[in-house]
């Protein structure tokens, strides 16, 4: 390392462009290319006619000579895909709301009411986040079956909060901690009840936290796979990830165009949501780890 490089933190602007290009932009570009390529490939395959997809001699695989909507058409009209999408929306929205409600209450109690033993309960809820779904799915399948919830949206709506509540609670605890106690004390003196304080003071002030918890919960439940694969059996009740992987593969014939179209259109809703709230999302992710 030369002396010029040594100054890079505070006096970054002294670094010449070619140097910075080699040291920063080039590796950054390569990593970003690696991270984005599968999405590009997904999109290209979705809009490419079968004839081009399986003929690398005549057509350049990176480009599309005759873009087509046939795969998307097939996906939406010849499979249960719209139904899967609807199921995924219902399940994600419901489990997000249940989790948010439970988490707001729990986080408020742990952080603001500070009842006896709240620290330990908080820790226990956090530990729940470390229990992976791939350990729970077998006993949960037995429970879901016993409760008569098998093969229905309700099975997913009730089980998804098990991994959403620990995360949301933990996140909201951090947000509630940033709100000054004095505000609550003033309200208490003015005769407000705890519930009024929560609804009228704490919640509005921690809205960014609630939003980021909500987005996080929504994307996590949109992504969930193993419970949906285990608890759902009929095609019309499946979610997008499960439907794509189990119903679009006929024996040894893979409909790559339709599969890629499913992957692409199944990703779009979370990506749109994410791009609107990316700052919340990032701060939620990093804030939760910083604490």
């Amino acid at each position, binding site marked *: 390392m030369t002396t010029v490089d040594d100054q890079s*933190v505070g006096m970054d602007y002294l670094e010449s462009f070619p140097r910075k290009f080699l040291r920063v932009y080039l590796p950054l570009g390569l990593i970003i290319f690696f991270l984005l390529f599968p999405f590009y490939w997904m999109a290209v*395959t979705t809009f490419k006619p079968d004839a081009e997809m399986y003929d690398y001699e005549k057509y350049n695989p990176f480009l599309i000579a005759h873009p087509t909507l046939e795969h998307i058409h097939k996906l939406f009209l010849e499979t249960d895909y719209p139904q899967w999408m609807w199921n995924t929306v219902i399940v994600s929205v419901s489990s997000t709301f249940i989790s948010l409600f439970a988490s707001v209450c*729990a986080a408020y109690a742990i952080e603001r009411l500070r*009842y006896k033993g709240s620290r330990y309960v908080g820790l226990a809820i956090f530990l729940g986040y470390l229990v992976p779904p791939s*350990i729970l799915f*077998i006993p949960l399948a037995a*429970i879901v079956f016993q409760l008569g919830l098998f093969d229905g949206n309700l099975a997913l709506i009730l089980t998804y909060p098990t991994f959403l509540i620990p995360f949301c609670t933990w996140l909201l605890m951090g947000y509630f901690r940033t709100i000054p106690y004095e505000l609550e004390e003033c309200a208490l003196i003015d005769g407000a009840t705890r519930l009024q304080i929560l609804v009228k003071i704490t919640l509005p002030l921690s809205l960014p936290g609630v939003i980021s918890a909500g987005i996080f919960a929504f994307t996590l439940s949109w992504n969930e796979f193993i419970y949906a694969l285990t608890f759902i059996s009929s095609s019309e009740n499946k979610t997008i990830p499960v439907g794509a992987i189990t119903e679009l593969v006929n024996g040894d014939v893979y409909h790559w165009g339709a599969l890629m179209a499913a992957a692409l259109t199944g990703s779009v809703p979370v990506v749109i949501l994410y791009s609107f709230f990316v700052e919340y999302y990032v701060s939620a992710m990093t804030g939760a780890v910083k604490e």
Partner: protein
Amino acid sequence: MAVIAEPVAAQVKRSSLWRRAFESRNFLGAMFMVPAIAILILFLAYPLALGFWLGMTDTKIGGVGRFIGFQNFVSLSKDSVFWLSVFNTIFYTVFASIVKFAIGLYLALLLNERLPFKSMMRAIVLLPFVVPTVLSAIAFWWIYDSQFSIISWVLIKAGLLNHYIDFLGDPWNARWSVVLANIWRGVPFVAITLLAGLQTISPSLYEAANLDGATNMQRFRHITLPMLSPIIAVVMTFSVLMTFTDFQLIYTITRGGPINATHLMATLSFQRAITGGNLGEGAAISNAMIPFLVAAILLSFFGLQRSRWQQGGRD
């Protein structure tokens, strides 16, 4: 008068009891916890306990099992496929986690530089983490196709290869292929969280080091790494935990094949329990993951303690 006064007094007493209960933090706290605790006990704690129990029974799907003690574990210990899945899981976790950490840290350092479009870059980098894993795994499945793999095509066009690579047909190719897909999936999480950590380090530390004539490497080694180590411990615990218990990627790309070469403990337990119908045996395989997970958590916990102790005992 006294006749009327009595019930009123009782009423006042009763209502004040209610009011006092609602003013008591302990009572209110307990009430507020009910929704979360109810869901977590019914669908998290209880299944966890039930999982332990199922692992010691011979339960089949649709039937009632009986208690057979550690027999599942005894038969698993003689099962070469189970040991292969343990090996695969460790292989997968070790290699994917190391590379995820290396690339993630590198990417975080790069993103921490003065850059144009910084927040847009950050948003793009996180995409693989946001998109449903199964859906991106389908894309990898297609990328690894034996006849139409784009990787093979590029390598052949570049003159580096003269035949298509059988990515998912050969045991070692398949193992490396799924490791690569996992790295792709995991790098954004590591990078963004480490970036957040980097941004909490005070620039004055670097300025002081600069004045003392520290080199780039020395600054990284003596400022960045120690300041970052608590976050590294947390991120890597999560990363190892998620990798070790991964299911989606393997299930989508290889389903454990070829000849069980990529079966992880999670996919094997699914295969035995749900596809094969032996819930008890599947649960036993899941339970076998727990010691590894506890070890990973304890390791990072004590790692954190140690770094705190090194920093003078503050937390």
